[in-house]
């Protein structure tokens, strides 16, 4: 069996994975990058709007403290505040460093990186390239990896001496030596042959779980691999009940349902209307945001040119608010013909400007839906987009509770609390990708001995099983039923009865998945790959549903019809999932969040905190303010 030895193995080659790998290599570690797809194809390319970083290029009033506040508000104060702090402080450096590696962002008049408005961000903050920022980011990081390889070729005669990409390779198990990580086991998609990595440190950067839902903006890769690998290796997941439904996905034609329509459409002036032509978002501004959003269309429109004297339009509320509003309008019978609402930019900007600012949206609608967005409105509706929950990690290092295991990007949990702001994902993966790379390198440096090579007999048997079952169940059917179940029963609006029902279905599907078979050879066999991925999707779906059932309040990406109010008591609690090494016995436990550091909580007004905190916490706040 093919076997490699590395210092750091990074699983996932999106933004977080590449940034982690670059850092580990820069720290002198022998680094492997493992990706399910070809190098440079990861889901990060789908990110459109930009990377949030308080550089203050467009509005000089912006700084890390404003960004920190916006992030905490967006997450309804459930965020890991240390992560939010590090993120807000370090994002500008991470964006600037990309320029040194060849990125070409759009510019301001004085030649700096331009920044655009986005939901929940007080100032124009998103560094961007038209509406293809994710592509720019992934290409820049990809080219940085290549540059490092060229350096290694000059120095060591081998471009892959210190950093190597294993493309179209899927990891199915993390390996351990006692309690600590010892490597990873997987297979080559191309040949079906197995491959083993012996390494003391593994960084998970596998992204999200969207493929457990039917309507999703996520690609096939988003099967919750990292979430599942972590739990199976003994790590813990937090905040799994919080899933972001992006308010604007395409709704028609059916085959593209769920594909993302960037928030930049609204950031650049687009408005949402119902079938009666009403800009309904004015009816949905929640109390906690009342004083920050315009109350009339006139004020909202003036804001685009004069932000000092007007409040922002409610189309730019955080994503959870907009998604729920659209859902309510459609349910009330005021939806568009194909079951969404109207998103119109055609009456707001000249055609040439739309094509310049939103080229890929223009292209996407024209090619896939026969809609010219410069002439007519789009139809849009909520789509499963991002999971706030993930591996519980230390903020500063990305270390999980299992020694040697690290996580960064969407697969990690905490940074975004109950809801992520648009633009905070690209910056998150740069900031915490780098930190996880550093954390993993420091961990390796601190080891007295390397872990001994693990036995892979069980991992091998598990992976090959679907191929050995003749006449087993069709994995595509099991997958489809899971997607329908999660979509219908643990979707944007949830109820105890429906979640319990979903858990029963998941239980049955787990049994059925153990009988899925795939015909054909081991060479590039998608049916076999899906049968293997099902284990991860089912495990992660169970975690989502169990946590969702326990959290009896509504907050961010978790809305309970039977508990519609946000509760200050619940804000202090995190739900922590764990499971046995075979994936059975998923348990969810409550854990109390540590209180925010005094200097950070003092950044907020008391009147705002009263909406979120308990009386005891407010007393702590008063004490902190007094002290400062």
């Amino acid at each position: 069996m093919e076997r490699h030895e590395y210092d750091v193995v990074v699983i996932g080659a999106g933004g977080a994975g590449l940034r982690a790998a670059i850092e580990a290599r820069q720290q002198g570690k022998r680094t492997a990058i493992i990706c399910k797809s070809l190098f440079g194809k990861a889901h990060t390319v789908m990110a459109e709007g930009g990377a949030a970083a308080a550089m203050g290029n467009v509005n000089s009033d912006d700084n890390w403290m404003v960004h920190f506040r916006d992030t905490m508000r967006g997450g309804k104060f459930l965020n890991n505040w240390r992560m939010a702090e590090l993120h807000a402080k370090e994002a500008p450096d991470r964006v600037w460093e990309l320029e040194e590696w060849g990125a070409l962002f759009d510019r301001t008049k004085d030649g700096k990186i331009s920044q655009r408005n986005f939901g929940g961000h007080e100032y124009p903050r998103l560094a961007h390239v038209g509406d293809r920022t994710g592509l720019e980011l992934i290409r820049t990081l990809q080219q940085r990896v290549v540059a490092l390889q060229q350096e290694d070729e000059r120095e060591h005669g081998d471009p892959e001496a210190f950093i190597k990409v294993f493309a179209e390779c899927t990891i199915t198990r993390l390996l351990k030596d006692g309690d600590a990580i010892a490597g990873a086991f997987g297979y080559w998609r191309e040949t079906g042959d197995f491959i083993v990595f012996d390494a003391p440190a593994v960084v998970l950067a596998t992204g999200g779980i969207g493929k457990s839902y039917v309507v999703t903006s996520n690609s096939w890769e988003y099967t919750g691999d990292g979430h599942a690998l972590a739990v199976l290796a003994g790590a813990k997941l937090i905040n799994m009940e919080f899933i972001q439904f992006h308010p604007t996905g395409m709704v028609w034609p059916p085959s593209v349902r769920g594909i993302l329509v960037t928030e930049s459409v609204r950031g650049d002036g687009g408005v949402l209307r119902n079938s009666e032509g009403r800009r309904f978002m004015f009816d949905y501004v929640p109390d906690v945001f009342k004083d920050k959003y315009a109350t009339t269309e006139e004020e909202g429109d003036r804001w685009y040119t004069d932000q000092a004297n007007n409040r922002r339009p409610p189309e730019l509320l955080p994503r959870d608010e907009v998604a729920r509003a659209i859902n309510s309008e459609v349910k009330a019978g005021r939806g568009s013909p194909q079951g969404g609402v109207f998103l119109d930019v055609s009456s707001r900007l000249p055609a040439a400007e739309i094509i310049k600012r939103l080229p890929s949206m223009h292209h996407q609608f024209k090619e896939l839906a026969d809609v010219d967005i410069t002439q007519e409105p789009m139809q849009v509706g909520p789509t499963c987009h991002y999971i706030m929950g993930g591996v519980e990690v230390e903020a500063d290092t990305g270390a999980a509770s299992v020694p040697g295991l690290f996580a960064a990007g969407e697969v990690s949990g905490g940074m975004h609390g109950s809801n992520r702001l648009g633009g905070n994902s690209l910056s998150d993966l740069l900031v915490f990708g780098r930190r996880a790379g550093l954390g993993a390198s420091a961990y390796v440096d601190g080891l007295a001995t390397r872990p001994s090579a693990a036995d892979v007999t069980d991992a091998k048997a598990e992976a090959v099983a679907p191929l050995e079952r003749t006449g087993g169940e069709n994995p595509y059917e099991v997958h489809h039923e899971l997607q329908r179940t999660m979509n219908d029963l643990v979707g944007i609006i949830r109820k105890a009865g429906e979640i319990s029902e979903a858990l029963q279905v998941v239980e049955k599907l787990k049994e059925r998945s153990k009988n899925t078979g795939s015909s054909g050879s081991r060479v590039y066999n998608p049916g076999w790959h899906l049968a293997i991925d099902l284990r991860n999707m089912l495990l992660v779906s169970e975690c989502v549903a169990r946590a969702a059932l326990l959290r009896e309040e509504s907050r961010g990406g978790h809305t309970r019809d039977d508990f519609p109010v946000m509760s200050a008591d619940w804000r202090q609690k995190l739900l922590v999932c764990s499971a046995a090494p075979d994936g059975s016995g998923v348990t969810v436990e409550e854990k109390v969040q540590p209180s925010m550091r005094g200097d950070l909580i003092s950044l907020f007004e008391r009147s705002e905190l009263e909406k979120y905190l308990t009386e005891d916490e407010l007393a702590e706040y008063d004490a902190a303010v007094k002290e400062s």
Partner: protein
Amino acid sequence: MGYKAKFRVWRGEGGEGQLEDFTVEVNEGEVVLDVIHRLQATQVPDLAVRWNCKAGKCGSCSMEINGRPRLGCMTRMSTFEETETITVTPMRTFPVIKDLVCDVSFNYQKAREIPSFTPPKDVKPGEYRMQQIDVERSQEFRKCIECFMCNNVCHVIRDHDENKPAFAGPRFLMRIAELDMHPYDELDRKESAQEEHGLGYCNITKCCTEVCPEHIKITDNALIPMKERVVDRKYDPLVWLGSKIFKRSGV
């Protein structure tokens, strides 16, 4: 709404294979990739195809549809007659791994042969100042989603494996142009474009531009200007002398 379409799909692995006929359901608004996925889910679970975003942004599902290089996810079924047989084959220029999946490692090899972005050492992160108009030329080329259809269609290598070692293909000649036009790049890339990466092989038939799903004007905006820069440098003694005397400031 739906109808049964006739598909002829190339199937095989290990250098052997054949076209196989299928009849498969098609629904309103679907693209070729949807139909391939339905074949997978209902008839041939091990049918190999690459895909990721299904929105024309990642460049994974390159294939040849009725002989033309296309992205499966951006090819609407409504562009065909319902009675038409649709033939789907893998890209021809690269070795087939299985069914519609090719070994595209040629492209990654070439990417590594192009010297990386080389900025001046004294400009610190955060100090870069560039005008929009100066970054737009390179930005056009950075729209590239690396579907590799330009390299697939290019006649220099499409039926001429022997040219592969000496020719980077439109994708990576465009990458050289992108870096050459970057306001901060300090490397002189003209000679190597010609001598090492095979710019001279290109005789501007524009096939690459025609198949580019991002509508990048590869020939007009990257390859021809690059050829002109090479010629200027090669034959104009003043330009040659100037390039020796005045160092590019980079700004």
